[in-house]
């Protein structure tokens, strides 16, 4: 943590240096995990025990406490990933590119969870595991876009080219996000419309509380995962630098030795 202390004044770009980001992210990770677990316990308790049973969907609706936060975040993460990837490309900022790359697997997992919980809900409610409905299809495409981004960045060995090519692909994919959002209105489909609107909702209070708790829990999870993964990427890509070598002697391990 002495990397933080060494810095006399903080500028807006202070944490774009991988060494300082590494230290800051390391500080945040335990707190994010704690927030994630506490909020999830509270949210699931409210959602599974306090919230009333739905009149038409019975207890099956309770999957939304996982489904909706995962769906919202998986879409948002793609935008954030594309933003940081583009930032890294335009300003040639390594840390932004690394962070974009760290976000991708979490986004892919959350997209998968969205599809999975959606199909768990669809079976008792619609009577089928899967429907090729517009919004479901869009999420399926979103998952493919994540996989494409991960595959491309992993396939290119050169760090710079990998980051910039990934940024271009992510930006092209961003075109897909509005299609997801508006698909419900474009096509007449099975998927129910939005319940949470900017002006008032049609949801019971405890349900709403649980939803918000779960939302923040997923948010904390995303930060925890992205920080942990970007720390690993920093160590991998900065293995030759002095501060990583100093860190390895300090901690008694050798990240440089794993990759010649």
């Amino acid at each position: 943590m002495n990397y933080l202390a060494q810095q006399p004044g903080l500028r807006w770009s202070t944490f774009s240096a991988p060494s300082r980001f590494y230290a800051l992210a390391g500080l945040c990770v335990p707190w994010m995990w704690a927030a994630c677990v506490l909020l999830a316990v509270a949210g699931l308790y409210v959602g599974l025990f306090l919230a009333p049973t739905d009149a038409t969907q019975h207890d099956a609706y309770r999957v939304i406490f996982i489904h909706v936060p995962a769906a919202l975040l998986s879409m948002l993460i793609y935008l954030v990933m594309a933003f940081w990837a583009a930032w890294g490309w335009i300003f040639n900022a390594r840390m932004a590119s690394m962070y974009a790359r760290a976000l991708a697997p979490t986004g892919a997992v959350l997209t998968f969870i969205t599809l999975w919980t959606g199909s768990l809900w669809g079976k008792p409610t619609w009577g089928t595991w899967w429907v090729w409905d517009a919004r479901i299809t869009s999420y399926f495409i979103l998952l493919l876009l994540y996989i494409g981004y991960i595959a491309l960045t992993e396939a290119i060995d050169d760090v710079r080219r990998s980051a910039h090519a990934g940024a271009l692909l992510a930006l092209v994919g961003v075109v897909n996000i509005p299609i997801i959002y508006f698909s419900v209105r474009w096509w007449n489909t099975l998927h129910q419309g939005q319940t949470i609107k900017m002006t008032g909702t049609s949801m019971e209070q405890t349900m709403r509380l649980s939803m918000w708790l779960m939302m923040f829990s997923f948010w904390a999870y995303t930060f925890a995962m992205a920080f942990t993964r970007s720390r690993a990427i920093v160590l991998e890509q900065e293995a030759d630098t002095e501060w990583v070598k100093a860190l390895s002697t300090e901690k008694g391990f050798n990240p440089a030795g794993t990759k010649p």
Partner: protein
Amino acid sequence: MSNVILSVMRRDLLIARRRQVEALLPLGFFVVSAGLFPIGVGPEAHVLRQIAPGVVWVCALLAAMLSVTQMFASDHQDGSLEQMLLAPQPLVGVVLGKVLAHWLSSGLPLVVAAPLLGVLFDMHAGSIAWLAFSLLLGTPILSLLGAVGAALTLGLRSGAALVFLLVLPLTIPALIFGTGAVLAVDGGQSPQAHLSLLGALLIVTALGAPWATASALRISMD
């Protein structure tokens, strides 16, 4: 700009003509893969008629992705792509010329062969015409998007397989509107809405994809 486009296109078409078998491989793939479906799903005419637009379109997508990796590969290998990047002429023009040549040499043959497949799938004459027309509007989109994927995966070991993964998800709107037009005709409706959207998609792609391809080439050759 139009000089660059035309000269690059003429050059690539000449190369394609000198390697005729290689240029016609996507067409062969298109016919073979579409021809497998009746054998796989059974010869009932009404089933075939129903799946025909989708099958023909999906096979066209795959055939286009198969050939698109060749767009820059040989120029990358012999170093002429580097010269094109260094040249004072705009790179977007080079890309457009290459895309046009790719479409003329491997996209247009698919459009021409599609009616034949339509007959094999027992489609009505009216549907066949609209299928060919939707492919005429759609295949340039495939060449344009494929160029982005080909430029991104330039020189990678797993490039050919990656292009499928990167580009196919992006072509899904084209697939939806292309097959939607034919299905609308089959259902007794006007295909105009789908074709308009497909045309709009072509315009948007033509405006964006060449620039994305040029940037991707610069990233890959950096």
